[in-house]
């Protein structure tokens, strides 16, 4: 999950803040990434729409179609159909890797300074891209679209609200429409997208946690096709597991003993209390212990507690031995003392320590 480190050079006195944009060498300022991993039914229609939008918007826009590995058929079809459109790029992963990897591929081949991801299911209309770009230009690093007037089955809405509520409770960040696939980001942020989760919706959470400025922007919903399917139980299960892993990772990557230890001690204590009660009943009240299955429960709780704590120690050991050198801060900006404006020599020239960014 941790993005690869890179050596950050110290900003010399007077340099503009790293977030300011520069004129891109390729001449493209906006890349729209249409990503398709599972829903293929509406992809061509959406592609045609987006292509129209991009070509109307000007030569500094481009459309990147990112396809997952198994969609070779789509790729050849699009290549044939749109071979004359110079503002269109089609990229396909060589193997099936999932939604997030597909998006990353699309971002990787994008030349634009601003990148907007667009889902291959009708959620929003192409015009919404403009609102996203506005949000980005206001200075945010990552923008998520929130659909106004979204129609859908009641179950979907309830499930969605529940999901958002859980996200808020575990990570402290409030989102309103994580299922909307319309996201915008700066090219510089694109390098740090973690490859986590089968779904794009975790990215704003992770990035927000890392300190990037994430904002939401209202966009009109496209209700031409209403998804009446209920979430299958399997999907719900996977989302729940992902959320659990996420809430753990977001807080405890470096400190596994915390949750494991807390859980383990809680189990230990409950088992212990139960055991004391049982003992009391045996010794003081004379009730035979051998007939009490509750004893098994007490022992089970205690031993399970011990094992959970042990797992916590294993995690800590792993981190200490293998990962303690990982830099775990990210620098937003920094300045060097005035008297050292000349080249600064590195103190320990043998190692190249990664610095956070």
């Amino acid at each position: 999950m941790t993005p690869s480190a890179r050596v950050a050079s110290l900003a010399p006195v007077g340099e503009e803040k790293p977030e300011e944009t520069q004129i891109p060498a390729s001449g493209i300022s906006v890349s729209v990434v249409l990503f398709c991993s599972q829903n293929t039914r509406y992809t061509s229609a959406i592609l045609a729409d987006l292509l129209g939008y991009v070509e109307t918007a000007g030569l500094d826009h481009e459309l990147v179609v990112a396809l997952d590995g198994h969609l070779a058929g789509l790729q050849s079809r699009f290549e044939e159909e749109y071979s004359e459109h110079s503002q269109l790029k089609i990229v396909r992963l060589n193997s099936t890797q999932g939604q997030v990897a597909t998006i990353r591929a699309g971002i990787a081949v994008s030349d634009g300074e601003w990148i907007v991801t667009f889902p291959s299911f009708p959620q929003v209309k192409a015009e919404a891209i403009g609102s996203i770009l506005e949000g980005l230009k206001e200075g945010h690093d990552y923008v998520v679209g929130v659909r106004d007037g979204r129609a859908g089955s009641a179950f979907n809405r309830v499930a969605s609200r529940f999901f958002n509520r859980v996200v808020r409770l575990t990570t402290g960040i409030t989102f309103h429409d994580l299922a909307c696939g319309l996201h915008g980001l700066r090219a510089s942020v694109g390098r740090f997208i973690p490859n986590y989760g089968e779904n794009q919706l975790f990215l704003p959470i992770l990035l927000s946690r890392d300190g990037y400025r994430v904002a939401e922007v209202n966009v009109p919903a496209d209700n031409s096709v209403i998804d009446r399917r209920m979430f299958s139980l399997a999907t719900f299960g996977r989302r729940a597991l992902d959320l659990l892993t996420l809430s753990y990772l977001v807080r405890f990557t470096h400190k596994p003993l915390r949750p494991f230890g807390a859980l383990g001690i809680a189990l230990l204590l409950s088992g212990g209390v139960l055991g004391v009660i049982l003992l009391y009943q045996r010794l003081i009240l004379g009730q035979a212990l051998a007939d009490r299955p509750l004893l098994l429960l007490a022992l089970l709780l205690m031993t399970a507690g011990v094992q959970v704590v042990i797992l916590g120690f294993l995690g800590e050991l792993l981190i200490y031995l293998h990962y303690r050198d990982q830099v775990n801060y990210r620098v937003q900006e920094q300045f060097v003392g005035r008297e050292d404006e000349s080249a600064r020599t590195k103190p320990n020239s043998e190692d190249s320590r990664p610095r956070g960014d």
Partner: protein
Amino acid sequence: MYNESESVPHLVRQVRDALVPVKQRFELILVDDGSTDDTWQVIESLRTEFPFLFGIRLKTNRGQTPALMAGFDASRGAVVVTLDGDLQNDPVDIPQVVKKLDEGFEIVSGWRRARQDKLLSRRFPSVVANWITKRLTGVSIHDNGCALKAYRGDVLRSVSLYSDFHRFIVPLAQMGGARVGEVVTNHRARQFGQSKYGISRTFRVVADLATLYMVTRYSERLIHWFLVFAIPVVGMSIVCAIWTMHIMQGNLSGSLLVPIGASVLCFQSAASIIGYGLFAEKIRMLAPTRGRRGQRLLATVAQGGLTETVLIRQGRAQPLRVSHVRR
């Protein structure tokens, strides 16, 4: 520093007043740990007036350890001094702490003999934490919690910190052979703002200490650490087995199922724990012998009547840079 915008100008000025007379080149690195107030703006505004000022701003508030690491990585001095961001340490003490290093120490810690904090909420947990730290890690200084410490730069930069380990810089360095000294320093009550740590911190410190204990005291015999947990469980298993036998012989009444079940349960648990222990040993065997920061050891070299302290890094010995502090 986290949300300490009022303290910043005073701190910078006091540091300057304390260090300029010493006539050594120095730099002051202020690390803004993702403050939500205008701390960073204040730091930036002081740039012109104080040319020795370095500023680093972190993206999010990750706590003291990452902030300190950011500062250490950016530091270049032969000697590095850490200071509290809320003016509880008096910069006037900096020169004497640094000078004490020359007496043959790699780390010198301040000692807040006359603590000014509220008794229960801050001093008591601190005393408890200090005591636990001392017992488990063998640290011999009186006040490990004092933020004012001087380190030899090479030693400090060779210690990898993660999680909340900034509290354990001293024990970690001592593992590599650092010698620690103490100097009595002033302590001032917090002048501005709120204190940001509470009593719940003690629990977290204990958890981290347990980890540290495991990796330091038991680093060569990890499985013993797991045995510590496994043996009571096995004991329980044996007790239940004996109990079963008593019932079978008719000495005690009751069904057989529960005691047998209990015995088996405990045994299985103990077996798992030992299994994890073996796993841990395997993990340790696969650990890289030379991490990025590597194993740094301190040694003393004597030749021709002169002795010096060296830092052994990646197979080479390197003399520690010495500061020349004259009062």
